[in-house]
């Protein structure tokens, strides 16, 4: 029997308990498997919700929202880098053929955000491999050719990162490099908001399926990169 209510469990998950109450709830949880299971459910719910909406805050802000602020800022216009999406038209076509299962072998090593095959699995090459290795989502411009979305640990261990560009998808770090779990045509042009969001939803579903806990924050991402994603 325990006097720990749902509100106390939730407050623990939300980091709202003081030291004394936190210890009290933790002791009760340690002694009661049912309570521990409920706590795990709540932790997982919070991580899942946070992880589900996190990509929205990490993707580039749509032009129309930027425009509202720019039109208002008449004194000192905001600097707005010209989008480089045009260069991606080619990559988008390649990505489309990739999804159709055509010409996969020919892509090795060339083109923006390349994906190659090794021992029957898709691996990141070239610009995509470099971006996955070095680019921090917390410190990237709005106009990079490849954008990193979420960085997170997968169930069973190991780092994964979602990306968008000519190709959008999710890659996980294996010993010999980044293994691409999913590859879809990325955000092909700035007017293709609808199209981009359909890839987003599928990438997010993959993230949801793989993720263990919450995605890394800026500090966690940086630390993982410093350790070479090991």
């Amino acid at each position, binding site marked *: 029997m325990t006097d720990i209510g749902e509100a106390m469990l939730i407050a623990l998950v939300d980091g709202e308990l003081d030291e004394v109450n936190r210890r009290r709830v933790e002791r009760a949880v340690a002694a009661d498997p049912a309570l521990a299971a409920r706590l795990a459910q709540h932790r997982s719910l919070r991580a899942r919700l946070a992880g589900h909406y996190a990509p929205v805050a990490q993707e580039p802000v749509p032009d129309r929202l930027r425009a*509202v602020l720019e039109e208002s800022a008449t004194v000192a216009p905001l600097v707005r880098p010209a989008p480089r999406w045009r260069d991606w038209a080619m990559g988008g076509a390649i990505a489309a053929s990739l999804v159709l299962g055509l010409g996969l072998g020919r892509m090795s090593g060339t083109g923006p955000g390349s994906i190659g095959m090794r021992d029957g699995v898709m691996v990141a090459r070239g610009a995509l491999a470099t971006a996955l290795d070095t680019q921090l989502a917390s410190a990237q411009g709005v106009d990079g050719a490849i954008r990193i979305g979420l960085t997170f640990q997968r169930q069973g261990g190991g780092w994964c990162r979602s990306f968008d560009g000519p190709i959008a998808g999710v890659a996980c770090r294996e010993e010999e490099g980044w293994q691409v779990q999913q590859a879809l045509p990325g955000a092909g042009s700035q007017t293709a908001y609808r199209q981009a969001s359909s890839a987003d939803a599928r990438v997010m579903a993959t993230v949801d399926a793989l993720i263990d806990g919450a995605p890394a924050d800026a500090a966690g991402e940086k630390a993982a990169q410093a350790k070479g994603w090991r």
Partner: protein
Amino acid sequence: MSFERDLLAILPRLRRFAASLSRDRADGDDLCQAALERGLKARDQWQPGTRLDSWMYRIMRNLWIDEARARQRAAKTFAPEEAGAYVGHAGDRDVEAHMMLSDVDRAMQALPQEQREAIALVLVEGLSYKEAAAVLGVPMGTLTSRLVRGRGALLELMGEAA
């Protein structure tokens, strides 16, 4: 102007909050745009030194409530026999948008408004109870009971997979 620049800095988070309140991403960006416009118009009411993000969350949340009320009114006026079933949504775009929703989106949509906004501020935006209660203008006890009920409903809606 630094006001616009400050808004630009928090815009990614405002978009995320809008997404967690709205049916889909397109609706979220519509809400976000309306909130930006309202915020710019009311800029004189913001007190420097206070949190701009909390102020904008409040503006956005009020717009969202107003919009939901207007939708309900429209649904009652124009389609009384369907009221409650679709609450003003119909057409291919809506069907298509709904099919693309994940379990999380669907479960969030099923929550009553006062639970959804509490969940969005605390679990998605990471606000403290105190901050979230201030944004919503409710006592802490009210906020925590909405969090308890909202979470219970989400766990039920999303199943054990949550």
